[in-house]
């Protein structure tokens, strides 16, 4: 019998079950390592509450938060708020992307625009998203528009900065190679600068998305009557600190899911890029 080696696995009466068992054990071990911290924290928190070390109002135990979660999950309140937040988040992020990416390309590509916008951007960028809330309510009133505006603003700043950076610092040798191969001046932007800047643009999108949650929560606390931020704010007024915890964890979950979605999309889109880290 010839010894065929496929995919690095020996074909000769290989101890396949043992291998499989080993793989499963490794997977379980990995899972265990990842779960140690969250489970440990939850347990410690629950125990501290049971023993009366912290007051149940200041820090309601996980069991009470779970009951609260069940309560608003089953009566539909939670979904209403999550739906409102998701809509604002997606709308704001899309608006931010469609404005900040083209603007960043123009500013990064044209030294004149870079100079024209330099001082303005230096002044506007440090203003934190929370400082915009008042003017947003003045302009857009209470409701979706204010929240969408703040989300868009929160997302737009990192997107803009990273796009400008990516476009400005495209390796000149790519442009030289493109010109040498017969690329016209107009095609340079589409064929070379944009793809070369794409990793940076994508970093901007991801940072922007992360940043936008702050804008969303603040806007919903003060400038809206629905959404996860409103849920947190309203729960505090109602002295329901268990629901405050639920609302905060919901923001965490939404952020995590959206960030992972972006990361996956990026890995697909940028599979040519070597600087892409595999584990985040």
């Amino acid at each position, binding site marked *: 019998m010839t010894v065929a080696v496929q995919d690095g696995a020996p074909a000769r009466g290989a101890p396949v079950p043992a291998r499989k068992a080993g793989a499963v054990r490794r997977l379980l071990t990995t899972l265990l390592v990842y779960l140690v911290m969250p489970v440990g924290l939850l347990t410690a928190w629950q125990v501290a509450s049971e023993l009366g070390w912290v007051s149940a109002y200041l820090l309601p135990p996980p069991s009470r938060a779970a009951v609260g979660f069940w309560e608003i999950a089953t009566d539909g309140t939670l979904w209403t708020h999550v739906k409102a937040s998701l809509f604002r988040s997606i709308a704001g992020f899309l608006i931010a992307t469609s404005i900040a990416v083209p603007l960043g390309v123009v500013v990064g590509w044209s030294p004149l625009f870079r100079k024209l916008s330099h001082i303005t951007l230096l002044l506007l960028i440090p203003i934190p998203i929370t400082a915009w809330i008042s003017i947003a309510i003045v302009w857009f009133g209470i409701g979706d528009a204010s929240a969408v505006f703040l989300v868009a603003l929160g997302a737009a700043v990192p997107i803009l900065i990273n796009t400008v950076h990516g476009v400005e610092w495209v390796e000149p040798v790519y442009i030289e*190679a493109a010109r*040498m191969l017969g690329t016209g001046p107009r*095609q340079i932007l589409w064929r070379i600068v944009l793809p070369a800047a794409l990793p940076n643009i994508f970093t901007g999108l991801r940072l922007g998305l992360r940043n936008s949650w702050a804008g969303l929560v603040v806007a919903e606390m003060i400038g809206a009557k629905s959404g996860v931020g409103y849920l947190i704010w309203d729960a505090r007024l109602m002295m329901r600190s268990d629901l405050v915890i639920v609302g905060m964890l919901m923001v965490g979950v939404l952020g995590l899911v959206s960030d992972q979605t972006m990361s996956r999309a990026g890995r697909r889109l940028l599979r040519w890029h070597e600087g892409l880290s595999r584990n985040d």
Partner: protein
Amino acid sequence: MTDREQPAKIRAEGIAKTFASDGREVVALQPVDLAVKDGEFVCILGPSGCGKSTLLRIVAGLIAASAGTVTMDGRTITGPGPERGLVFQEYALFPWLTVMQNIMYGPTVRGLGRREAEKRARAQIARVGLDGFEQHFPRQLSGGMKQRVGIARVWANQPDVMLMDEPFGALDAITRNILQRDLLKLWLEERHTVIFVTHSVDEAIFLADRVVVMSARPGRITAIVPVEAPRPRDLLAPEAIALKAELTKLVEDQVMGARGEPSRLREYVS
């Protein structure tokens, strides 16, 4: 030798380049005259900083000369063009394109159509020995393979003149030798004009019809040495060793000369 009277594919006349650096003017290239015949393989040999890459980039049209003109077939070069293909030391492959797409790039942007671009790319992939790597991205290739793509990408444009800027400078010695041999074999098939910049005396002797020796600070041509041995050349043959000794001395003398010692090079200028 007076280059001026010969028919030439590429002719540089009085090419000079001054860069502004920190408000001071740095002379990168003193006026240089050079004529390269159609189908000739010319190596420009010199130490780093001698302006040999500057000269090549001026011929490529990527930078403008401060003085003088370069002509190709009698027409003045004013910018880059696909009839002069440049191979970069750092490969300069487009990392977002596959091997196939990189090689198709030139014909595609020039509007030759997808079908023609693909046909040319496939032919070049076979020529440079990259079959099976069409769908790889540059980051998945070794340095030697990257430069094969760099060469194939230029050839897909069917240039009249190939300009090579230390194309094998970043490769290990073994890969470098293999690529030199492959390049020579493929060049012998078509015998297009090549201007090849290098700082390796061996490489120049192995490849060139003529070796143009340049000196540093400021860059200028100090000698033009023909290599007449038939190809493929044996670098261990006595004539090759003698030539290597001569060229090495020429290059090293300039490095010494650049430190203020009197240069004895003028006599070599033919």
